[in-house]
């Protein structure tokens, strides 16, 4: 137990002293996760809305595919992205391997089905009386879509938070695509994995605290927004 307690004390010192390797990893994590979240929300929200709102041929099959993608292992996504952006891959020329952009692409693939599937479920769960009410109040098609989205805003926020949690805590993609390069592509999770392997629990715990704090702040902000 002593080493865990000592780890917490050391973690506090590292964070307060502004240890560069720790804070670089934190910064890299924030950058890639924010970027991948923006991309996945940008693509996943309209896609989820279309799947949830409209009835079309092949909708069930598309939902099944989307739900299957929810279970994609991060190492598989890492492998696939690696294959595409490595020098031998079709996108090798873009020089994305071992970059934060590469990690962001992988994490976007990870978060996209989460945002799309939860958004689709939320939209499908809209009270059937809502549309009837809006029509009876004179809403046009655009008003209906905008109001429906606003009515399920908490469900969509939940989709974003769930996806953010997944992106923030994944290791496989960051490790395989980013390469865990110190001061460059090392993220909080890859750093924790590395420090623990080296027996440096304090650094691992420090980074773990940061990770939990980020998740806590995000949830707290959303909870505040919900109350507003």
């Amino acid at each position, binding site marked *: 137990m002593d080493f865990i307690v000592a780890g917490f004390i050391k973690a506090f010192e590292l964070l307060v002293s502004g240890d560069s390797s720790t804070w670089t990893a934190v910064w890299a994590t924030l950058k890639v996760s924010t970027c991948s979240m923006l991309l996945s929300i940008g693509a996943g929200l309209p896609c989820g809305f279309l799947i949830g709102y409209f009835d079309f041929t092949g909708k069930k099959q598309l939902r099944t595919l989307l739900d299957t993608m929810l279970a994609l292992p991060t190492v598989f996504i890492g492998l696939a992205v690696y294959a595409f952006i490595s020098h031998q891959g079709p996108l090798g020329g873009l020089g994305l391997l071992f970059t934060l952009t590469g990690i962001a692409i992988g994490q976007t693939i990870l978060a996209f089905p989460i945002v799309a599937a939860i958004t689709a479920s939320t939209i499908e769960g809209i009270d059937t*009386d809502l549309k*009837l*009410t809006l*029509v*009876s*109040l*004179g809403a*046009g098609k655009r008003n209906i879509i905008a*109001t429906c989205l606003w*009515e399920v805003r908490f469900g969509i926020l939940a989709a974003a938070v769930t996806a953010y949690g997944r992106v923030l805590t994944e290791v496989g993609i960051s490790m395989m695509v980013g390469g865990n390069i110190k001061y460059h592509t090392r993220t909080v999770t890859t750093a924790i994995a590395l420090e623990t392997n080296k027996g440096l629990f304090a650094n691992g715990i420090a980074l773990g605290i940061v990770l939990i704090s980020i998740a806590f702040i995000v949830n707290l902000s959303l909870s505040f927004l919900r109350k507003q």
Partner: protein
Amino acid sequence: MTNLEPAYHLKDIRHYYGDKKVLDIDRLKIENGSITGLIGPNGSGKSTLLKLLAFAQKPSMGSILYKGRPELPFSSTVRSRVTLLTQKPYLLKRTVFENIAYGLKIRKEKNNIEKRVKKALLNVGLDYENFAARLWHELSGGEAQRVAMAARLILKPEVLLLDEPVASVDTESARLIREASLNARKLWGTTLVIASHDLQWLYSISDRQLSIFKGNIFSTGIENIITGPFEKQDKKTLIKNLEDGQIITLNLPEQTACTAIIKKKHISIDLEKQPGNGHLNQLSGHIASMLLEKKSETIMATISINDLSLILKLSPEKIRLLNLYPGKKVVLKFHAHDVEWI
């Protein structure tokens, strides 16, 4: 287009949910500024008809003319003029003020919104100061229904469609909603179509009652429905056995049909059975209720015959002559050939 055109003219309407036909209306007109009562059991097609009249759905077949012009959902003509209030209306996850002002905002009407919301709330007996800032979940069922009503009244609609508007609210809310709907007609000449199980209210306010059963409209108001099982007596007649041993004889339908309609006009009332005539049904029962229909000054009497209730219209003279009152034992008579099948 003239003012003489009815508010609605439905032509050859057939509406299906999947393979199931839920509406079958050849012709129906609803006059401008009238109050139409819509009566029928649950699942008879009342709500579907109101949704079609609200242009929230397109009929599977047929056309709906609004003031002489064929209209479809989302047409700009009807969108801002026809509104529907359902039994459990959806309140937006916003404040009462925003809920009521929603219709104005999407019409881009920005003048005197606060004043108009205040007036709309007052119309349904709610105080602006206490209610405007409340959130949707801070209202009782009756208050929520009144807010929904106010959200529609603020639009000064040409047509107000009410689907069981007071079925699940407290007595005071029901009274205020009823008053507000009648005020709309008085103030703006709004055409009202009201579906309700509250027959007393409907008969006292409506100019006309439409009865709906299995998607079929009967413009003579509520009619008597006899459902199976029936037994085949011979090649031409079916019988229905009542639990108390009485028998109803009905002519066999020409086409496949399973529900018999006996119109009120075909039923007569007496105090004694008369001998003979096997095709004249004579059923003993008790008067369960009597209801005054203000417009025609006739009385709607419901006669309870074992587990069956039959309705007929009676003149005040007939009631005086036979000294009829609720609870009195009577005999209802109608011919087997007066049955209609649907």
